[in-house]
């Protein structure tokens, strides 16, 4: 048998598979699912962009209104402007008026996976209020039933439904021929089982690959959810290759199941159970492992610590003592003067620093846990092809837990940078409270609205590309391993 004939055999198998009505039904269902998932993904990306735009608009509105207030209060007037009503004062603006946001913008491939986006908001307002115990206080309440069931996103279709479609398409190749007796006819021809299986599963793989990759591309184009891929085409190509490897993995699994020669039903049962194990049971076990490897520190203990700090601060003369201590660390001796520790602004700054110090260990533990959990998840996810692909899709979408943990850290850093920006200004104003304008109702000591640091989101591209590459390597290895096992078992026709 010359190798030239294999393509002809493959073509015959392709004709055979494409002649089946079931094939077209499966492909139609798959493409419809992909289109629907891309559409919901596009809606989600749209909502994320709207939230981002709203945050930007709100920041601009705060600056605009503060500038207007600055202008309005620059003339003598009879009204009384308290510090919490005064956007022309550094402390007042920072604490009550500024609308500063840390944002996690969608990536150009965000349409692919909802990931953690439905439980971890991508926009968090930086606030200097009472409630900030943790970095991840921002919450977006939604339908719990929907969260429980999960979104119908592309990741779901590609990771969960595509294997099922492949099992429906290729799961009974050879084994149904075995059941019906056609296999005896096939086996009697001068050709070995590897060639026939190669052609049969090769044809199934070609159909599945075309439908999955083509369907996904088409769905993405039609949905309009794809962003500008400049700089991301490498990641997109790696993801496409990883997806192809995932498809081949499942086709190879079908070939391996067929090589058991136990008939179509046994093959189907084995495949569906393997699918349930890899996509449902194993991820659950891996998640339990992550819980054990990176245990979650107690939120309640941290809240208790924050309240202890608060109760401590407000007990007796602690507030004055803490504020004095805070001032000591910041002011040269000659700049200090009596009564300074009573200034409400300084008391507030000292109090916040006191809280931060009391919670520092808890914060560190929470951040370390988030990073450790995401790092372990990244490693363990590679143990199941399903979680490996899901993680690659989520990382490319920028909706993975790792990016969110990093985002929360960046938001905390941003908060510190805002504090560093405002503190000297607030301190200077309290030290030297000279009215800028006699008779004006407001303090007018702050107008550097445009100089307030803005949040610079980190680039998600590097990690996305790395994860896609890692997933591709793992999936390709898994697919090759299964294919090799199947080929080994398919040395001989069953008697």
């Amino acid at each position: 048998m010359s190798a030239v004939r294999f393509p002809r055999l493959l073509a015959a198998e392709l004709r055979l598979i494409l002649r089946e009505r079931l094939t077209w039904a499966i492909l139609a269902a798959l493409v419809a699912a992909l289109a629907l998932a891309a559409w919901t993904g596009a809606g989600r990306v749209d909502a994320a962009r709207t939230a981002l735009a709203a945050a930007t608009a709100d920041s601009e509105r705060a600056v605009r209104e503060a500038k207007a207030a600055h202008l309005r209060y620059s003339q003598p007037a009879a009204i009384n402007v308290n510090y919490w009503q005064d956007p022309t004062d550094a402390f007042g603006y920072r604490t009550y008026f500024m609308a500063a946001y840390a944002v996690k913008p969608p990536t150009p491939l965000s349409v692919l996976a909802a990931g953690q986006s439905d439980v971890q908001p991508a926009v968090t307002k930086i606030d200097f209020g009472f409630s900030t115990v943790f970095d991840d206080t921002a919450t977006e309440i939604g339908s719990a039933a929907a969260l429980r069931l999960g979104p119908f996103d592309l990741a779901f279709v590609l990771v969960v439904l595509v294997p099922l479609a492949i099992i429906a398409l290729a799961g009974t190749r050879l084994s149904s021929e075995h059941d019906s007796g056609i296999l005896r006819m096939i086996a009697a021809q001068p050709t070995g089982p590897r060639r026939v299986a190669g052609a049969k599963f090769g044809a199934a793989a070609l159909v599945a690959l075309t439908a999955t990759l083509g369907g996904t591309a088409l769905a993405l184009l039609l949905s309009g959810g794809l962003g500008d891929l400049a700089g991301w085409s490498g990641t997109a190509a790696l993801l496409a290759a990883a997806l192809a490897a995932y498809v081949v993995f499942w086709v190879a699994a079908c070939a391996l199941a067929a090589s058991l020669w136990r008939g179509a039903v046994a093959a189907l049962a084995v495949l569906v159970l393997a699918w349930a194990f890899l996509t449902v049971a194993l991820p659950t076990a891996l998640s339990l492992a992550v819980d054990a490897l990176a245990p979650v520190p107690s939120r309640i203990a941290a809240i208790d610590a924050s309240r202890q700090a608060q109760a401590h601060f407000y007990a007796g003369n602690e507030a004055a003592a803490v504020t004095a201590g805070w001032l000591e660390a910041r002011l040269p001796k000659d700049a200090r003067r009596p009564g300074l520790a009573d200034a409400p602004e300084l008391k507030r700054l000292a109090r916040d620093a006191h809280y931060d110090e009391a919670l520092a260990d808890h914060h560190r533990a929470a951040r370390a846990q988030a990073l450790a959990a995401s790092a372990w998840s990244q490693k363990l996810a590679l143990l199941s092809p399903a979680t490996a692909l899901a993680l690659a899709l989520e990382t490319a979408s920028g909706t993975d837990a790792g990016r969110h943990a990093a985002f929360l850290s960046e938001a905390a850093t941003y908060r510190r940078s805002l504090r560093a920006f405002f503190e000297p200004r607030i301190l200077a104003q309290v030290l030297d409270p000279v009215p800028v304008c006699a008779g004006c109702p407001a303090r007018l000591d702050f107008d550097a609205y445009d100089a307030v640091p803005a949040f610079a989101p980190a680039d998600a591209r590097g990690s996305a590309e790395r994860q896609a590459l890692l997933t591709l390597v793992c999936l390709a290895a898994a697919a090759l391993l299964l294919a090799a096992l199947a080929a080994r078992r398919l040395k001989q026709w069953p008697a």
Partner: protein
Amino acid sequence: MRRIGAELALCLQDARLRWVGAVLALLLAVAGLGAWRDAVRYGQDVDAVTAAERARWLGQDAKNPHSADHFGLWVFKPSAPLAVLDPGSEPYTGRMVRVEAHVFNDAVYRAVQEAGPLARAGLGSVADIVGLVVPLGAILLGFSAFAADRERGTLRLALGNGIAPGRLFAGRFAALLIALVLVVGLPLLGIGALAAMSRDAGGWQLWPRLLAWIAAQLAYAALFLLVAMLVSLRARTAGHALAAALAIWVGLCIAAPRLATTAVEAFVPAVSYREVRARLDAEMRPHRTAEANDGRTREILARYGVSEADELPVDLRGLMMVENDDHHFALYDREFGAFFEGIAARERAFAWAGLLSPRIALQALSQTLAGTDFAQHAHFVWTVEAYRRSISERMNTEIRDRPQRGGTTLVAGPELWREIPPFAHAPLPLARALADAAVPALVLALWLAGVGGLCVPLVRRLKP
């Protein structure tokens, strides 16, 4: 009865039942005991921190009541005892609320935030296992009921010798159902009893809840048993029956639930929480300006016909805080009321979406009976808000009714703090849960009736 006994004896000898039973018992035990351990730990933590918060509230120094209002406290949502079986909405909703002056704070720190990326869509809870694995078990037990006999030719023999197909079906179904009750119902009852006996279940009417909950799970299991037998009535071979039943399982338990998410989101639009918050901010902003404050001050002075605050029979700041809070309360009631109603509408839509898949109907029914549905969460949120308002109102009226002259500030002490009772949260009663459960229960009953109804003509015209 004799027939059922004979069928049951056959069933009990089958290795399949032992395997299905062992796997289910293991999964349920691991998930149930893990959840029970977490629940006990969380309950202890909540009790300890709640006592500490109460002590901190009562132990405040003498201070202005408004400062005490700002000092506030944290309250914690008690987990429903049956959350061990079905956590329902609990992992997806906040557990802790900072109660403080002026602000309707979110319930924060949802368990799902900490759950890690691999935990979603898994088999994390007993309810997940019932929703996904129990149907598989029922299918594995029921798929061969008729198809295997047909394949062997024994069905032809049985029918040819005058055995009535209806009695054959009823006997087999009853036997398999009893087997299923043994392997599903007993472990659930065990875990539920453990949860019921080891936790304080005041106000939960726990045993009727538990029994109703288990009945719902068994109805769901019976439905998939019927599905498997329905397929078996038609299929030529046991293999075809298994393949068809597995395909139905994938459709109903895997694909349809997520499709329902998309459908409900498309057909029952809801405003986002972010928009609600933004709208509230936008409404409150003009109210907070110095000019608005000045206007309100002048309005109050005019209302009382005086020109100085010290001439008022009440404390100006206290009165303004009362009125300010009233304004905010009305806004919160309107905006959050509409928002929570929107979510409730979505949750109701999910109950109807159970028509797409019994797994969705079971989810809605199960969490309502377990007391872990969104209504319970909303009830908690509003109870906390009522508590917050009661504190603010008491502190504000204390200031308002004790006018201070010449710029001095009122100082209150522990007697006032003690007037605020500890936070108490009673769950929504079982009667309310039963009313909320009507739609999903009806939908599940429709599924049972539908599949049972499809079986009837097939049984009557059973082909050998």
